């Protein structure tokens, strides 16, 4: 039975400024990550016949066809399968499940999923001159900072409806920081308290600066193969037990209920059904933390607590190194790195935890099933996958 599986991962090294090395480009970052991940997988570029990529890089105006650029740059010979799905930061979990289907159905054998960003080095993160276009034209004329303003509107609504507050959100930022302290490649490792977060610079109420993800460079690579190819991989193969994906809106104002993450409810429901699992079967979760509120709403939508009860669930460092529900052991987008589109790092860290390669931050308990969840846009799209040491 042909079982698609992950057999290698890699993330780019970032320095104390949150940048990759000075002479790297958005393409060279992806090449370096691919080389390392392929080496760990025991494969070469010539083995690759499937490629997935998403990013914010390209030519302003004409845009760029990212799968074509990387096929050429990496010399991947006539790939049989390409995916350039771009649903925002969730895209790489979409890629993973699309790759699963392609490999399962004999469309291709070995897939590379790639991401790279030099947004910090190149100071690319400027949103003031962008065109006010499509449904966001109203948001832009109203001066809504994107994406933080959109997440702030959801946070305000969540607080109003469920009584969550700034301390609730700060718990999430502090847990991320406490994990990052244990990750040598994390950008932010200095001490952080609840008060530090609450007293940090206000950005868009109720969100402060330390409720927001970092702005860094970064990159990552994932290699998928299947069990027909061989069974003796360098790393134990990690299987994909279930997945779900969906989308709802582009501008936050078209989100049906800003206090409830319906896209994550839908995507996780599909992932649980496919894997015949429920939240209680999940040993550990990697949840895209673009903002603290993203985690709060995701925890509720993924079923780890009831809708509206996240405020109690995250208390007393419950998500941190000494808590009962550890998440985001790499330090997350809040404290490890956030190059713009983060979900690939949820997959990379999940695999490393399953392989027992996480050093000081390695979870002490037995891990079999890990859930990875990615949010894209402004709570717009969602993809959930359940990775496992056990084959289907």
């Amino acid at each position, binding site marked *: 039975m042909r079982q698609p599986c992950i057999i290698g991962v890699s993330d780019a090294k970032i320095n104390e400024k949150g940048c990759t090395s000075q002479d790297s480009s958005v393409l060279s970052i992806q090449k370096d990550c691919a080389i390392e991940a392929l080496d760990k997988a025991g494969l070469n570029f010539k083995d690759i016949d499937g490629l997935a990529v998403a990013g914010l890089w390209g030519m302003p105006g004409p845009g760029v066809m990212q799968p074509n650029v990387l096929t050429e740059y990496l010399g991947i010979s006539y790939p049989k399968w390409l995916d350039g799905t771009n649903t925002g930061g969730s895209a790489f979990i979409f890629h993973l499940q699309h790759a699963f289907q392609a490999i399962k159905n004999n469309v291709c054998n070995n897939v590379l999923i790639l991401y790279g960003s030099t947004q910090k080095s190149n100071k690319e993160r400027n*949103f*003031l*001159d*962008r*065109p*006010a*276009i*499509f*449904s966001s*034209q*109203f*948001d*832009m*004329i*109203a*001066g*809504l*900072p*994107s994406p*933080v*303003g959109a997440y*702030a*509107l*959801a946070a*305000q*609504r969540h607080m*109003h409806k469920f009584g969550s507050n700034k301390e609730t959100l700060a718990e999430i930022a502090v847990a991320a920081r406490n994990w990052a302290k244990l990750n040598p490649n994390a950008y932010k490792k200095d001490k952080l308290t609840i008060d530090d977060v609450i007293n940090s*610079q*206000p*950005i*868009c*109420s*109720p*969100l402060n600066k330390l409720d927001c993800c970092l702005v860094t460079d970064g990159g990552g690579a994932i290699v998928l193969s299947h069990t027909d190819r061989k069974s003796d991989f360098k790393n134990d193969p990690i299987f994909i037990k279930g997945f779900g994906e969906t989308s*709802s*809106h*582009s*501008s*936050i*104002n*078209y*989100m*049906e209920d*800003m206090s409830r993450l319906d896209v994550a409810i839908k995507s996780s429901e599909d992932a649980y059904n496919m894997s015949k699992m429920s939240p209680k079967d999940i040993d550990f979760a990697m949840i895209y933390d673009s903002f603290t509120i993203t985690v709060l709403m995701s925890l509720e939508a993924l079923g780890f607590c009831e809708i509206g009860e996240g405020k109690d669930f995250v208390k007393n460092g419950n998500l941190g190194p000494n808590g009962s529900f550890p998440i985001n052991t790499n330090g997350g987008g809040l404290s490890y790195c956030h190059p713009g589109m983060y979900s690939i790092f949820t997959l990379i860290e999940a695999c490393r935890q399953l392989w027992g390669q996480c050093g000081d931050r390695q979870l002490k308990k037995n891990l079999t099933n890990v859930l990875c969840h990615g949010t894209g846009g402004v709570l717009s799209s969602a993809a959930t996958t359940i990775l496992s040491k056990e084959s289907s």
Partner: protein
Amino acid sequence: MFNLFIDKDSRVFWEGAKKNRLMLQKSKNNGNFFLYSVGHSNVAADHEFEWVEASGNGKIYSYTVSYIPGGSKYYLDKTPYIIGSILLEENVRIMSNIITDDIKSVEIGKKVKVYFRKLSDEIVFPCFKLV
């Protein structure tokens, strides 16, 4: 200052605003209202619709006080300012600004009324004031 791309689905809205009229789209099939996209409005994309003037009454669905400029350089010297998602009487949400001297008085659920604000020679934006 504003890099606004008016298109087929928003032209009547912006032209109406210049005449101090808040314009919405209304499905001829089921009478539901929407603005620009039909997502979550119970209107299907193939419904026929007409443009109608809204009452201008609504309430605050959510809001944020922005301490950083967003969307346009116009906002560089305007912080802090309030962006609100306003739920209109017609059951359509519109992204706008809440104009007040008292930021603390702004709360979710409070009633608001449209107030047309001229942002440039080309753009009048339907904003809202607390009732």
